[in-house]
């Protein structure tokens, strides 16, 4: 650690012990100062939260920025239940904002469970968003992708087995334990770009040998991650996330 300001001393005249004492004094002074600044920061963030509770609740963009600010200074506004007494951070966010996220997390767990047989436990974040907003047509609050990601992160505390996985530019919620290997990720990415994959598509686009493609595609089908279409010129493998995408395309056209 750089000991700023020590140049003023003639360090040669100081014993090592003294030197260390001085150093740690300075460090602890710095530490105190930082702590003071941080807690001031938290204080202000707390004021901000209560002053803007309704914006935070009703505006997805606002929520995302607020979450970023909290993360930047190491505050987790969603660690504590709203019913818990005491503690500054407990009352950090309005009760209804906290409950908004906790309820969202409940719904995410349920959707993962309900759609698991369709998609093998890999569901696109945008699909979860569409499902939630379609169910809640009357509500003024529209759930955003960021909200869902925030809610999924709070669920980390409940153990491994539910988390965000990036597939190219797409974000998925994975609700089955175990890692996906790079080939499987690549296949899902390719599905997103081309709609579906086949042995010859993977050969032409990625230079994969048929044996490699076949074994990856069969493994993924066996895991419920891909659906098979046997009525084209060759067997085609589709990601069920296409269904939601297709729906969006149809809705926008």
């Amino acid at each position, binding site marked *: 650690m750089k000991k700023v300001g020590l140049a003023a001393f003639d360090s040669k005249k100081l014993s090592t012990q003294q030197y260390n004492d001085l150093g740690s004094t300075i460090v602890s002074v710095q530490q105190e100062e930082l702590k003071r600044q941080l807690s001031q920061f938290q204080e202000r963030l707390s004021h901000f939260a209560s002053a803007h509770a309704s914006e935070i609740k009703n505006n997805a963009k606002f929520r995302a920025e607020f979450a970023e600010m909290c993360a930047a200074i190491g505050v987790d506004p969603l660690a504590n239940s709203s019913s818990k*007494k*005491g503690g*500054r951070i407990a009352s950090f966010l309005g009760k209804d904002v906290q409950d908004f996220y906790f309820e969202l997390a409940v719904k995410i767990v349920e959707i993962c469970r309900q759609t698991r047989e369709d998609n093998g436990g890999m569901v696109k974040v945008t699909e979860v968003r569409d499902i939630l907003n379609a169910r809640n047509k009357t509500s003024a609050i529209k759930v955003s992708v960021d909200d869902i990601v925030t809610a999924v992160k709070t669920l980390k505390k409940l*153990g491994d*087995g539910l988390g965000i996985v990036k597939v190219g530019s797409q974000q998925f919620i994975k*609700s*089955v334990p175990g890692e996906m290997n790079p080939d499987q990720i690549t296949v899902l990415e390719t599905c997103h770009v081309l709609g579906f994959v086949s042995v010859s598509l993977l050969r032409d686009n990625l230079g994969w040998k048929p044996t490699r493609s076949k074994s990856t595609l069969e493994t993924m089908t066996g895991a419920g991650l891909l659906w098979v279409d046997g009525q084209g010129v060759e067997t085609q493998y589709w990601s069920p996330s296409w269904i939601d995408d297709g729906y969006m395309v149809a809705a926008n056209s």
Partner: protein
Amino acid sequence: TSTTITVSSSFDAADSLSEDVFYQELSRDLSEFLHSGVLDKEGGIISLFDLYALYNRSRGYSLVSPNDLYKACAQMESLGLPVKMRRYKNGFLAVQEKFKTNDALTKQLISWIKTVDASNTKGVSTLGVCSKFKWSVGVAEEELQYAEEKGLLCRDEHVTGLRYFVNIMCT
């Protein structure tokens, strides 16, 4: 030398006392909730994810955070409640009845597989296990993998899905 600065929310004595009470009450309430028929419906084991969803659904308002739910489950055993938290090898968490040992559950599973697939030629699927033991898919998978880690079961990965067989390769 590097210095880490942690800023924690400072509780005074009364706060930390009320915090202890909060978790104890939550643990007890969860235990009661589980014994109101929920645990029976889930075949005696429930994943923390499902417990979180079901419990908060039943509360309806002033929901419990995932963090608090975890802390309350973690101390169920030390509070002497009839349920305990269990951590599977891959980090999956569940709550189960205290009197049932992990190996007793496995024994139950293996003996059922031996009766439904006596010839050991078809194996069983996760869904088959779910419907037999009333477990959620997550729990069934963990139980099957637990038996696999013990060398009692082995797997057949196929395009038709994953199936588990009684392991005859180690004899």
